[in-house]
């Protein structure tokens, strides 16, 4: 079952083409978007979250067309969204803010609404700070408030833009658990710079680069693309696209290996580096 279908989506801001004929499909499970800064991930997620309409191409969400106002409202009834830069009414307490969003999500009956607010507060580990004003919270805690509001009402489609930014390692593990649970039977589309998060959570990955979808498939398929292109050496290899010294003193090289190189199994990060092949990465072996 396809929950999100983006076909040939193109979006420009002035002369900058943020999306260039992007195709993406996502169904139940967690779909991750990987890509460097400015690649178009956020624009794509904002399109999926009904914030932006593409200049060209079609978007179908939960079987509906978000360009129609009625459909858009129906989609939003089943959508949870955490933007990259989530702002809050800082004078509200955590409970008040999430309750406010719950009202906007048309949860009108007070008692069940408050029960739902308490549920997402507990889910995101915000119980100790639920009576605190948002202005008094750390960045990581605010991120969790953003996550909590997105998860209100158990949405069928959850769109999360860089949800792990600002979270400490323990919070990230907790977040993974939460998203993994949310992805059981529902569709989660998230972007992240953290390839570990993507590896741990995603059933499908799309790599976006310069506004185009450069890869779409499973993490195993992406990792497989780097097979035979990662090797260790006692020194930085001139043939490597990227190379770095590891904890045991050897160099991990990614690129086209020289003959006789000691190949090792690639990771998702290796495959990602090879795919986007940024020129600045080559600086590492100059």
């Amino acid at each position: 079952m396809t929950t999100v279908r983006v076909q040939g989506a193109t979006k420009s801001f002035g002369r900058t083409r943020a999306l260039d004929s992007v195709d993406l499909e996502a169904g139940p499970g967690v779909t991750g978007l990987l890509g460097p800064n400015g690649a178009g991930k956020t624009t794509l997620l904002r399109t999926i979250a009904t914030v932006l309409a593409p200049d060209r191409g079609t978007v179908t969400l939960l079987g509906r067309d978000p360009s129609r106002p009625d459909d858009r409202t129906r989609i939003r009834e089943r959508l949870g969204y955490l933007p990259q830069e989530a702002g809050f009414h800082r004078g509200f307490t955590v409970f008040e803010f999430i309750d406010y969003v719950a009202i906007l999500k048309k949860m009108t009956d007070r008692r069940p609404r408050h029960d739902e607010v308490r549920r997402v507060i507990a889910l995101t580990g915000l119980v100790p700070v639920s009576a605190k004003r948002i202005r008094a919270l750390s960045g990581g805690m605010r991120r969790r408030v953003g996550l909590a509001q997105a998860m209100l009402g158990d949405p069928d489609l959850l769109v999360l833009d860089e949800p792990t930014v600002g979270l400490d390692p323990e919070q990230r593990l907790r977040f993974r658990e939460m998203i993994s649970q949310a992805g059981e039977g529902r569709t989660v589309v998230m972007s992240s710079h953290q390839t570990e998060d993507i590896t741990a959570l995603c059933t499908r990955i799309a790599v976006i680069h310069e506004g185009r979808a450069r890869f779409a498939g499973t993490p195993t398929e992406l990792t497989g693309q780097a097979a035979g292109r990662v090797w260790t050496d006692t020194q930085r290899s001139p043939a490597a696209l990227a190379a770095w010294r590891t904890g045991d003193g050897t160099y991990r090289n990614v690129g086209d290996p020289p003959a006789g190189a000691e190949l090792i199994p690639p990771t998702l990060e290796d495959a990602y580096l090879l795919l986007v092949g940024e020129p600045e990465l080559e600086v590492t072996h100059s």
Partner: protein
Amino acid sequence: MTAVDSPTAGPRTAVLRHLTPLIGREARRLARHPVLWLVPVVVIVTTAVDGASGGRTAGYWYGTIFVDVAFFAPMFVLFAANLVASGARRNRAEEMLNVTPTTDTRRTWAMSLGVALPLAGTGAVAAGAMALIDGVNDIPPNDLQTAGELAQLPFILAGAGLLGVLAARWLPFAGGVVIMFIAATLGGVVVFGRFDAGIWWMWWSTETAFENRAPVPGEPWLHVAYLAGLCACATVAAVYRDRTQWPRLALVGVPVLAATLVLGWLQLP
């Protein structure tokens, strides 16, 4: 499971059920806004430093309530309501809140009503307090307000709040509300300048002299209707601000504006 409670009532009832808690939240946000808390501070300070040459009699409190509600409070209310209405934009929360099934139009309805209703209630309480003071003490006839003049108080307060919301919607940048304030003030000065009383900036029309000036002689009840029309104009303009709503803005706004202008003309002597 979706976010929405399953509606069992008709669409109109469902809209009301949805808007009511939202109106309550917006009213609470306004009531808690620090700028609004300055009103009692100003009242306390001004009454404390006021010499009250005739003593703090019933007449003194009668006049004090009137001046506070009709003159000081609207200025603070304008800025407080604007800060509340522009809070989502200033806090960069708009994107998150926009992606909810509550449309921008409905959120603005809730905001406008959440601002206007409690302010109108406060104005009504003030008018009631003045009537009560008059009932138990004889206020000198020169100071006494007619029912039509007292009835203006709720609309003056609500109107100031709605002007703040309007500024947040149409002038969504830092300083927008200051531009609105200056425009409203200059507009008042220009209008009042047409009368014998000379240039005198006041928010209300009354037969009663204030500081030896009677700004506008006119028909108080028609002025009440005119103020109500201005409130309606501000609400309609704020609610239908979005470009997609401009046909509706024209459809609803033009008759409301026309009626308000007619009332404005009729109130004049």
